[in-house]
Every structure is written in C-alpha cells, then in structure tokens.
C-alpha cells in the first residue's frame, strides 16, 4: 500500500521551488502516492520519539560544555541591533537577546532572530570555484587568486586600469569597505561603488548640499521625543522593524504618526493619518504641504531668518502648488494635504523619515531637498524630536558611504580633486606621484560640463550603470575602454535595474568574479559557460570590525565563529589579491598583516587618522570596545551614558566625534543641535558653500551653539582663521607645525579642531542651511514627471532634463526616453519594496531555512480593479512586462494594499530569469531554498540627475495572465 505524503517534511526541501510551497494542493496532486510503507514502518517503535525527527537539528546545545557568549551586530539593516551568540566548542548553538543594547533593547525582527543560521551555512559557497564549460570546478585559493590576478593584469596592460569594475559592499565592516576603496585607488581607478548608490545616494548628495552632512540627523531612540512623525516613502515596519519600537513609543508618548506612501504598508497600519500619493510626485506633495504652511504663516520665521537661506525662492515655487494642482498631480485629496500640513505645524518638533520611496527617482535629489526644506520651514532640524531621520538600508551602508568604496569620493567625502588625492596619499604614507602613475594617464577625458580631466579626477562609473560601462560604445565613454572584468564583493546584481541588458553585459565580459558568502543571482543569470569565479567569503559574523548604524553610531563586532569552510573575510581576500597584483606592500604600509590577514584595528586607526571631515577620528577601536562592554550604562532615549567608564559619552560615538581619541569628544547624537556646546555633542549648520552668495550672507545670523565664543555665524576653521582670531597660540608647537597652511579637514594633528572646540565653535563653521542648491541641475527642487509616466498629459508641464553626453563617464538619457508615451500600452505604475524576511538581493536570507519558509514565493501585489481589468486571478501566475521588454513571471496577489493603477513587488528575489528557474546553474548544494524572478528584470532606464540613482519607484508595466 502506498499512502500519500503531504508537503510537510522534516527537512527543508533541498529544491523548495516556489510553486510547491504555495499551492499546497497542486503539490499534493503531483506528489501523489510516494511514500510506500515508510509511514507504517516509521510508526513501529511505538511509544518512543522517532530518531529521524531529531536528525536535522544539527547543533543541539550540549549540557556540561562551557558556553561562551560573543557579541556582534546584526548584518541585516541599519538599525544596528546587538546580537549575543552562544558558542560551544566553536559552534554557534544559540542566540540570546541583547537587552543591554540601548538601540534594540534585545529586540529583533525575523532577520535578526535568524542570524544563527549563517553559522550553519548549508547553502554557502564552500570553496573557490570557477565555471568551466558550464560546470563548476573546484580551485584552491592560490589557484583562484593567481588565475584572477593574471587575467586582471593582462586586462590592465591591454586596456588600462579603468577596464575593471570593483564593486564593494555596504555589508562590509567600515574597515572592509575602506579597504575596498583603497584597493581601487591603488589599482588605479575610481570605478568602484557599493549599494549606497542605489539606496540613499540622492539623500547624501541632496541633504549634504542643504546643510552639510548627508546623514540621518537624529537617532531612532530620539523618536521617543517626537510630537509628529511623517514617513514618506518609508516602510519602517518591514524595512527597519526594530526602529518601530522607538517609533511606536513616540506615538504612545503622543506623537501623531503620518504615513505618505503609494502603498498601504504595515507602517501605514499604525499611522494616525495615511495618505496615498502617485509614485514620483513627492516634490509636488511636499510643496502642497508647504503651500498650507506658508498660507497660514505656520513657518518658523525666526528659525528661517537665523539659519536658512533661500526660502524666498522656495515660496515662489510653492505658490505654483495650490491644493487643486497637488490633487491633480499627486492624486491626493485636497483635505488630506491640508490635514498633514496642520498636523505637522501644530505638533512640533516633528520628524520626517524617508527611504527608497523618496530617493529612487530620476529627480531623487529634488525630492530629498524638498523634504529638507519642509523641515527647515517648520524649524524642525537640530532639535530633539525633530530632524530628518533618513533610515538607511544595509547594516553598514552609512559607514561604507562615509569611508568606503564610492566612485565619486575618497574616504570621508574628500572628493577626487588633486588636493584630496595628495591628502590621502599623505595619510596612506605613499608617494602621490606613484599613486598618480597607477591611474590611466594616457589622455584626458570629458568630465562632464566640458572640462577635460584625467580619470583620476573624474567620478567612476557607478554601480547603477556598470552595465552601460560594458555595453556602451567606447567612443562615448570618458575612459579608455569598456569594462572587461567585474569584481563583486558583497553586492547582489538583482538589485540593479534593466535585468535583460545586464544579462547581455554579463555575457560580454571576459571575467566575472563574485566574492560572496552565497552564490548570487549574478552567478546564474547569464548564459555564460565559463569565466565566472566564486570566492567563498566570510560573513561579518566570522570576522571583527566596526559598523556604523543609521544614527551614525559605530559599534564593534566580535568574531562569533571562525570562517566556515574555506571562506575568508573581505580584508583577507583583498590582501591576497593586492599581493598578487603587486601593491600590497604600499597599500598595507600602516597596517600590520598577520599571515595574509590585515589587523582590523590598524585599519580603523588609519580611518581615524584620515577622516576629519566627518569626525571619524575619535572612534578608536579601544573606545568602541569600551562602549560595547558597558553598553548597559547608556540611556535608551538620549543614548548618553550615565556614570560608568563612558560617562557623558553617546553610544557608539555617533559621528562627528571630533578630534583625536584623546580629546574624548562624546560624539554628536543630534546633528546641528545648538542647545549643547560642540564639546558636548552640539552643532550648527556647516559652512560648506562659501560665506556669501549674490551679496547675501550665507553664515548663520545671531545663532550659535551653546558656549560659543563667536556669537554669530562663522566660516570653517583654517590655520589662517585661527591666527586672525588670535587662537593660534592655543596650539602646541607640534600642532602648529602640522597645522600650518591647513584647515580643519586636512590638519592631521587635529589641533585646529581641538582649538575650535575649545572655544565652543564647530570646526566646520556656522552657516545657514540653503534651500537653493545652485550647483545642481535644479537649484530650486522641481517636480518632473518620471521618465516612464502614467500621466503623459503632465509631461509638457513637468518635463524631464535634456540628455547628457558625459555624466559620470557615460551618456545619460532623459528627454529621449520621455519623448515616447508608453502609458497606453503599459498603464500600470510599477514600484518595488522590501519584505521583512529578506534583505537586499536576498541570497543570504533566501538561503536561510527559517526565513525561507516564511516567504516561499515571488509575487506582485495588484489592486482588485486592475486584477479584474487584466485577468489576473489571486494566486495565479501572471507576466509583468516592462516597457523595455523585460518580463517576469510572478504570482498575483490581489490586495487593497496598492491602489488602482499601481503594482508592487518585493525586490529580494533572484534565481529565475524571465520565467525560467535557474536552479541547475547553481553550484551543487548552494541554490537558495527560495528562488523567484528578480523584479529588476522588468525595470527600466532612468537615473538621477546628480547621483545616477536608478529610478525604480515609478516605472511602468503591463500585466497579463500566463
């Protein structure tokens, strides 16, 4: 007799394809009569538990064996939750809540609660491999590094150093990310980038150009003090679940919570006010709110006169956005916009939170600046409970942006000008001329806006555009050759748009190197038969390092377990490669290397030595370790230690933590908060844009931080300014020597910063925030319709930019795309977002059995109206096709979460391509439990006019049943 067997089985299915897990009945019908007499036999040992049930519990705790506790930080989002790992005999056997962490207080979301599974590593890449004739062949590390290195050297010789794209990671530690940037510099190229490009690059550029730094101004914990919270394009409940602990406590303290989103998210479910708007119309909405604020005189006039420049020009633009225009463009009822304005005005301080919904547009920089302007008008920046709380994505995307692989900057936002290179050459202790010679010096190229420059001083090709770096006609590139090889260390390619062209690009490359704990979508999506290398790379649980949370706090990670299988940490991989490529000695001059492993603490000390701009100088490894040890002494609202060895300091020394570690600066918990002295973590707006513009004063007027000896605005500190002020002699003789001719950013002794702070001044000056960013394409933020817009009738009124020939080394199209109306054939707006269970490209989370069983399938959310119009039935497969021809096969989920005219998909899936499951292309045993279509296979062209951010939150698609 052969009984049925149901899909419930003891083990996670090796090939848990999506359809099986969701449609149970279909699966049953298919699996049919399979078990045989097994069911009967299994019951024979009658009253005893079956041993087989226990077989897959692979790491039981052993009684009587010593348990060690190690503390690390969750690697899945920017909140920075503490994780306590229980280790027995080097095996990760348990996970405990870290109640003492002031950030998460022991809390975890699904991802944080699952990190122990990384210690099992069932689906990891276990040894170096290369694809030969369509099958994966095992290599030794030496073989792999030699083969890769030889090929890279040949490419370098033939096509110059810019022919390789080095993709780093926001999931690397600060030290790993820093070495990724340094590696690219020593290789001789700016073609390195990481996830921040497609995450918050528009935020960083837009916000920094408004008031100085492009980071979250307050902290998650500070949201306890809010009176209002406006979430635009942020789904914190799914993207930053533990932050919701603080958000909801703020709400319980009386804050009004407003969520503005095209989708009724889990966050919206907790909001007092929910407003739906059309994707990509955030500028219009924000101006609509400002229209009411200005009309009713709700703006903070004193704040604006003291601290804000350019609001008059904003008023002129806002006047064009009366309620009926907003209702027409954004699709938001007039009374709702008025209600949001009134709520924000009557409940101050209020905070504004935004995420990818605000940034991932071709006008992303305009949108984020509009948000900043709203907060400035309300006087909400620089106060506790206010701020622009920009929740960042990956666990170390803040740190990697600050000190890591950015194609447009050196660590610490020093830029790419010659002085910056000279400065960093000095920090690195290498000869500037030697460094220069590493770069392509054969000729100069168009740096955009007409000037010619060497590639050393032109921003590299960003990660959002690497495919164009491969496919574009080399004549149009501002570099010598196309990319011939790519090296991806910790980045999933399914998070970048235009999957169909990406496949072409991958197939055109000579070599693809993937250094990652898991084989990413990149390893399987192309039809390549060879030339792909997989380097098993350790997770952050298998190494040490510091990580910067979204609130700018740095936390120290302890090593939980030794690297699994043959994995090596990022910095060891980079060292081995640097050694092969011949610049290891130069690159690791200041860093002790122990058997190919650079000492992480030394790397952080080098960061401390160089990153004066953003105050990454005070966070020495010793201080970070002390904070980790005494984390229970920090207040859970202010993050300030009460008593104990860290008394008065803020948890994780949120940057800027000015001066040398010896200065004991406590870190800056709230940016631009003048109610504290700079020495105690106070700050004012940065003077980064000169002192005057068109005859108007750009410095603050009558506003200064507590205890400032200069009772007005002042420019940034330089040696000359110190002399003028008569403070020069406060420097020690050694400091004088180092500071001569330098400024607060380049004085390696830290003396200028020390003296400025001693006199109560901010080293970066005291200026106004500017509402008009004259160096951007749109000085005053403007609404422009998305390149693929459903409201083509509005294009004439809100057109996009003209095409650009050389923009980040590439031709970039705007008008030529928008000139075609796609809205007839592709009537639905297509947006994407996060699921709480997965993260980023999702490989590591989809390979985690505990998470995979919660979300077994890729799907598309579609409103019942559109479902009926398109014939998509709930739970059935549909094709979602983008206007550039890419299409994905996904299950329809008919829901009211999205309004009519908008569809939404998660972006974490991969392993399928245009309807085909690529399971047999993975190295044996490494296919993630859950695979599905990458939503970006169907997404389209569209890049921000400042940062090349991809436009994923507002393209078009059509849907039809399979």
């Amino acid at each position: 007799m052969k009984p049925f067997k149901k899909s419930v089985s003891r083990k996670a299915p090796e090939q848990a394809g999506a359809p099986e897990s969701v449609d149970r009945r279909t699966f049953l019908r298919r699996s049919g009569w399979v078990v045989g007499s097994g069911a009967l036999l299994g019951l024979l040992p009658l009253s005893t538990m079956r041993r087989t049930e226990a077989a897959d519990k692979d790491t039981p705790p052993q009684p009587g064996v010593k348990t060690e506790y190690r503390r690390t930080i969750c690697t899945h989002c920017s909140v920075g939750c503490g994780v306590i790992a229980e280790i027995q005999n080097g095996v990760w056997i348990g996970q405990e809540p870290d109640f003492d962490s002031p950030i998460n207080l022991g809390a975890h979301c699904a991802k944080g609660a699952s990190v122990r599974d990384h210690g099992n590593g069932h689906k990891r890449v276990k040894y170096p491999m290369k694809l030969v004739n369509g099958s994966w062949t095992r290599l030794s590390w030496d073989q792999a590094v030699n083969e890769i290195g030889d090929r890279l050297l040949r490419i370098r010789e033939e096509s110059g150093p810019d022919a390789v794209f080095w993709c780093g990671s926001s999931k690397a530690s600060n030290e790993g990310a820093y070495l990724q940037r340094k590696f690219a510099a020593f290789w001789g190229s700016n073609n390195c980038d990481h996830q921040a490009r497609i995450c918050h690059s528009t935020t960083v550029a837009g916000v920094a150009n408004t008031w100085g730094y492009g980071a979250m101004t307050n902290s998650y914990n500070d949201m306890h003090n809010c009176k209002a919270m406006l979430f635009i394009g942020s789904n914190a409940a799914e993207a930053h679940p533990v932050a919701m602990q603080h958000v909801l406590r703020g709400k319980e303290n009386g804050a009004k919570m407003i969520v503005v989103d095209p989708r009724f998210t889990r966050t919206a479910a907790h909001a007092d006010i929910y407003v739906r708007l059309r994707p990509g119309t955030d500028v219009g909405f924000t101006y609509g709110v400002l229209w009411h604020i200005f009309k009713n005189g709700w703006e903070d006039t004193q704040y604006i006169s003291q601290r804000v420049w350019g609001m008059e020009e904003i008023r002129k633009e806002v006047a064009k956005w009366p309620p009926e225009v907003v209702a027409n463009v954004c699709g938001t009822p007039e009374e709702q916009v008025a209600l949001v304005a009134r709520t924000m005005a009557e409940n101050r301080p209020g905070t504004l939170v935004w995420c990818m919904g605000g940034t991932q547009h071709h006008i992303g920089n305009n949108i984020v600046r509009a948000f900043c302007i709203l907060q400035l008008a309300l006087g909400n920046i620089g106060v506790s409970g206010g701020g622009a709380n920009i929740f960042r994505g990956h666990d170390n995307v803040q740190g990697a942006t600050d000190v890591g692989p950015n194609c447009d900057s050196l660590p610490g936002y020093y830029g790419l000008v010659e002085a910056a290179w000279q400065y960093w050459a000095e920090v690195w202790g290498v000869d500037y001329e030697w460094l220069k010679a590493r770069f392509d010096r054969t000729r100069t190229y168009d740096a955009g806006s007409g000037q010619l420059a060497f590639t050393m001083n032109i921003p590299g090709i960003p990660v959002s555009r690497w495919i164009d770096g491969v496919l574009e006609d080399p004549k149009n590139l501002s570099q010598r050759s196309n990319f011939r090889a790519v090296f991806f260390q910790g980045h999933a390619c399914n998070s970048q748009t235009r999957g169909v062209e990406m496949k072409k690009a991958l197939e055109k490359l000579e070599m693809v190197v993937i250094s990652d704990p898991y084989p990413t979508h990149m390893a399987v999506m192309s039809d390549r038969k060879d030339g792909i290398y997989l380097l098993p790379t350790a997770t952050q649980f298998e190494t040490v390092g510091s990580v910067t949370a979204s609130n700018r706090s740095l936390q120290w990670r302890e090593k939980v377990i030794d690297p699994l299988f043959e994995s090596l940490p990022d910095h060891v991989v980079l060292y081995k490669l640097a050694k092969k490529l011949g610049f290891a000695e130069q690159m690791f001059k200041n860093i002790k290397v122990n058997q190919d492993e650079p000492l992480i603490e030394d790397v952080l000390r080098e960061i401390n030595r160089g990153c004066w701009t953003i105050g990454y100088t005070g966070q020495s490894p010793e201080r970070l370790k002390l904070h980790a040890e005494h984390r229970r002494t920090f207040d859970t609202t202010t993050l300030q230690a009460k008593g104990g060895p860290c008394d008065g300091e803020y948890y994780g020394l949120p940057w800027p933590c000015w001066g040398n570690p010896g200065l004991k600066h406590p870190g800056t918990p709230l940016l631009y908060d003048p109610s504290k002295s700079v020495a105690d973590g106070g700050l004012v707006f940065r003077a980064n844009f000169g002192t005057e513009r068109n005859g108007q004063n750009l410095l603050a007027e009558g506003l200064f931080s507590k205890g400032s000896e200069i009772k007005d605005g002042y420019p940034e500190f330089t040696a000359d300014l110190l002399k003028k002020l008569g403070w020069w002699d406060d420097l020690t003789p050694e400091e004088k020597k180092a500071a001569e001719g330098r400024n607060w950013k380049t004085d390696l002794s830290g003396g200028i910063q020390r003296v400025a702070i001693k006199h109560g001044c901010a080293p970066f000056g005291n200026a106004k925030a500017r509402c008009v960013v004259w160096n951007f394409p749109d000085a005053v933020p403007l609404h422009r319709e998305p390149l693929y817009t459903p409201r083509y009738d509005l294009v004439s009124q809100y057109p996009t930019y003209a095409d650009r020939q050389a923009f980040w080394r590439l031709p970039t199209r705007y008008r030529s795309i928008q000139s075609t109306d796609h809205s007839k054939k592709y009537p639905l707006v297509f947006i994407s977002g996060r699921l709480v269970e997965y993260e980023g490209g999702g490989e590591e989370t989809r390979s985690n059995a505990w998470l995979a069983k919660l979300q077994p399938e890729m799907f598309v959310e579609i409103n019942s109206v559109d479902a009926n119009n398109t014939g998509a039935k709930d739970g059935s497969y549909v094709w979602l096709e983008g206007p550039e021809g890419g299409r994905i096969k996904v299950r329809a989920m008919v829901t009211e979460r999205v309004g009519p005219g908008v569809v939404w998909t998660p972006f974490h899936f991969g392993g399928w391509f245009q309807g085909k499951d690529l399971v047999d292309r993975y190295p044996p045993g490494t296919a993630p439990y859950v695979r599905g279509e990458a939503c970006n296979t169907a997404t389209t062209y569209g890049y921000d006019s400042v940062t090349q951010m991809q436009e994923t939150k507002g393209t078009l698609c059509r849907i039809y049943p399979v």
Partner: protein
Amino acid sequence: MKRYWSIGMAIFTAAWLIAGWTGEAVCGSDAPSPGINRRADFWRGVREGEAGTTTSASEGHKVLIQNGGQNWRQIRNGPIAGAAPWLLSAVVFAIGVFFVLVGRDRLEEPRSGVAIPRFSLFERILHWFTASLFILLALTGLSMLFGRAVLIPAFGLGAFAAYMQAGLLVHNFSGPLFFAGVLVEAITWAKENIPKRMDLVWFKNLGGMVGKGPRPHAGRVNGGEKVWFWFMLTAGLVSGVTGLVLDFPIFGQSRLTMQIAHVIHASMGILFLAASFGHIYIGTIGAEGTFEGMWRGKVDKVWAKQHNDLWYEQKAKELHLGTN
C-alpha cells in the same frame, strides 16, 4: 455554567451565519478616514473567525481564534462520551431483559438432518472479513473515546499510550478496508434486501419470536434482516465517508470539516455498535440454528422452514426435496 456553554454555542452559530452574510461589509471601503482606528471591526472579525493573512502555511493558521474547537470539545466530551455508555449498556440491558422474558427462539421441531445451503463461501468470507474489522474498529474506537476514563486508571499512562498508538494505527488502516467490505456487501445483498409488503406483516408479528401466533412468511431475507442490512449500509457509508475525511488529512479539508466529520463519525459508530449488539444476539444465541448458516454455510431444513418459509419452498424445489 451549563448556560454559559449554550449561550456560547448560540453565539457561535449566529456569528457563523452572520460572518457568511457580512464578510464583505467588515472589510469596508478604502476611503481614507484620517484619525479613525477601526478597532471594533478588528475584534468583530476575530470573533467571527474571519480569515486573515499569515506566512504560516499550516491549516487553520489564517484564523486567529476558531470557535469550532470548543464546540467540538463540548459535543465530544459531553453528549457523545456521556450518552454512549448509557446507550450501549441500555441496549445490552434490553437484550438481557428480552432474553429473560422471551427466551431463545428455539427450533419448533426436532432437527431433520437435512442441510440446506444458505450462504456461499464468498458471502461467508465477506461477512466475516467485515465483521472482524468491525470488532477491531469498535474496540479501538471505544478505546479512543473511553480509554482515558477506563483503561488509563487500570493500566497506566505508558501502557495505554503504547496500546493506543497501535490501536490508532489499526483503526486508521482497517477503517478503509471495512468501508470497502461494506460496499461489496451492499452490492452482493442489495437486491434481495429490497423491502416488500410482506415485511410489514413480519414486523406486525415481531417475526413470530414473541407470542404464539403463526410464523410470518419470509423469503431468503426476512424483514428484520432487511432492516439490519439497510441500517448497516447507512451507518457504514456515513462512518466510512466521515472516517475517510479524518483518515486522509491531505486534501486540504478544513479543521471545521474534520470537527463535524468527527462528531458524525463518533455518533454513528456508537449507534452502529449498539445496533450490532442486536444483530449479534439474534445471530448467535437469540435464534437457534442461525449461526451455522453463516459459519458453515448450511442450515437445517427445519430452521429454514421456520424462519424463511418462502425461501425454503423455493430451495426445496431447486433441490427436489419434496414438500415435507
């Protein structure tokens, strides 16, 4: 306390009905109404067992609180477990009383020694196959219902659990076989069990077992046997179908379906068992000479004449026995 449950039951039934009608109304429109938290709708939905969404694929996990379980528990642990022993003992008692008052239905004449074939080998195998499965099912089924009250105090938890583990297995595997047996029986015997007018007469005379009236006429199957056949078929079908619902929880049947199936299955099983007592009584000690018909396949001429006279006459013709 009793009232508590009847009220609960009433609410459940009402809620169930209402949920069916107003399921849509609960969802309401999407018109944003700022500041209004529709808490009441949520709790009403919970009480009505409204299905939500969840990432768990397990049966029933979409419903937060299912009210059916408590009702099922009350019905099983209350009326079913309560009435069953009374019913079963009442039947046994009634048979005992009948036996004492009326006594065995003896053969009215001495055995003739002439054997008349009554049941073929196939029929007998079929009967005993089904009957032995029935007894197994009855024993294990009763153990599931009453073992905790009766057997655990006697044998202890461990021993009972071991027995019950095997018992459950036996019950689950023999159930479908029994069901199959019942179906084959139905095909085999349905035609001759079609009721006829004379069966009414048979019942009027109580089969001639009570009192001294003349024996009523009967064919191969008398009225009593026909009633048993149709009852057996009904009970077999009902308990068989509900049993299959419970035995194969792999077709996505809902928890509520299984609860209802269980109540029907248990009640029907008890009725089946109670009725079977009568059948067993008549077939063994109740009527002399009956058992051998199903055991050896042959009955005495006297028995045949006494109980199934019309059949006997027909048989006698076939076998050329003559009228005496």
